[in-house]
């Protein structure tokens, strides 16, 4: 059977990678900083996939081009699957991401507003290539979904999930705004509200702070993987430790042969 996935996410904007806490962003460094100070290539020996999101608000053509140029530099010697997202509003945006090394593209806003464009992407590139991320917050015991970088309420969670039945997509990533960047652990409740008729892989994002957090979630049958964007906790040796810890705790994960220690 298939193994579980530990996915690393990088939040990019205008040449810089960012740390996020409850969706407020803080610059931490550029590509060279990432490569030189954190042995990024080695980190990739311990992840199943990489997600890179352009978190620039309303990116213009120049922002989009710079994002792809930087990504192309970053992924030169990285042989892991890559999902690119951020600012996809059209089929053309998605196609450009595929042409620049994306195995999958990730949409968020578009899944709220334009079923036709979403389906045009999956019809050409296949359902598996369209990942949907949804940001949510719990307010007075109700789960609400958000757009616009966590600023604008969109739907009740159950309504959002219901309308996904109209979409052809691959995996679904639940991103908890409340837990984002807190290192307090993943939200282990909301995903239980997803009805059984949604058979797509479900991944959780937001809150990873230590190896135990990965294990607690990955042992659940409904969860295919976890995503962390926590730069400081998990760059360097953090992901290696989290992965090895999870394997010791009997989570089904692959121990990859290292490309970098030859």
């Amino acid at each position, binding site marked *: 059977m298939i193994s579980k996935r530990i996915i690393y996410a990088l939040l990019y904007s205008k040449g810089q990678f960012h740390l996020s806490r409850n969706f407020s962003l803080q610059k931490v460094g550029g590509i060279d900083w990432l490569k030189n100070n954190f042995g990024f290539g080695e980190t990739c020996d311990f992840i*199943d996939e990489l997600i890179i999101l352009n978190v620039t608000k309303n990116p213009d053509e120049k922002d989009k081009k710079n994002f792809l140029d930087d990504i192309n530099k970053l992924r030169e010697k990285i042989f892991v699957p890559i999902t690119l997202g951020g600012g996809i509003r059209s089929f053309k945006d998605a196609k450009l991401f595929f042409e620049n090394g994306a195995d999958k593209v990730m949409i968020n806003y578009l899944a709220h507003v334009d079923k036709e464009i979403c389906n045009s992407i999956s019809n050409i590139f296949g359902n598996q290539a369209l990942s949907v991320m949804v940001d949510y917050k719990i307010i007075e015991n109700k789960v609400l979904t958000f757009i616009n970088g966590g600023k604008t309420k969109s739907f009740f969670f159950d309504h959002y999930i219901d309308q996904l039945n109209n979409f052809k997509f691959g995996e679904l990533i639940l991103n908890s705004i409340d837990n984002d960047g807190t290192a307090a652990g993943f939200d282990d409740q909301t995903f239980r509200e997803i009805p059984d008729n949604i058979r797509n892989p479900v991944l959780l994002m937001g809150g990873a702070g230590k190896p135990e957090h990965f294990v607690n979630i990955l042992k659940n049958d409904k969860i295919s993987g976890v995503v962390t964007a926590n730069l400081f906790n998990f760059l360097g040796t953090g992901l290696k430790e989290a992965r090895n810890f999870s394997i010791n705790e009997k989570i089904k994960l692959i121990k990859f042969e290292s490309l970098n220690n030859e």
Partner: protein
Amino acid sequence: MLKKKIGIIDCDFGNIASLVNAIKYLEYDYKILKKNTNFENFSHLILPGVGSFHEAAIKIKKNGIDDKIKEYIEKSKPFMGICVGMQLMFEKGVENGIENGLGIFNGTCEKFSEKLNLTLPHIGFNLVENPNTKIWHGINSPSPFYFVHSYRVSFDKNSSYENTKISKTNYGEDFISFIEKENVYGAQFHPEKSHKTGLSLLNNFAMLN
């Protein structure tokens, strides 16, 4: 003897950038081939793909690339299809409507059975058996490779698969994850996304004469 040069077919479906990076990393000479390029000048040919079978099949037929691939294969030079590129080498696919493939291998590419109630798409690392052929030299059996698909060619227990070597992978059922017959190779998984093991497989392919 032809100088080693790998042709990577770009049919405008999917992600060829990663494969190009992998071939560069392995330090082989390569060229990206558009529809009008002559395939004859290349020692090895790869057809990669992210895309739905239907769209991809229509594209390669419209461009006449299907015939050029068949001609290339007849010359006994190494050819590899990856993901949809592999699926296209079978007789038929049903994703987004029934469409014929190249028919180099027997079988139909269909969706994983609904009866199995699987999480779909099948995304992540899964294990592939090593069928003990040249291209698998030095690779453990089974080894993990990256999959991202909802359609597959199922493994038929009753077929003899004459002159064909098959690797199986299990996801609720056995399906064909790698297939080879003489000089033709097909991988349902993405070697260019499968860490060091994937690069070893690509390197072995490039080493074939």
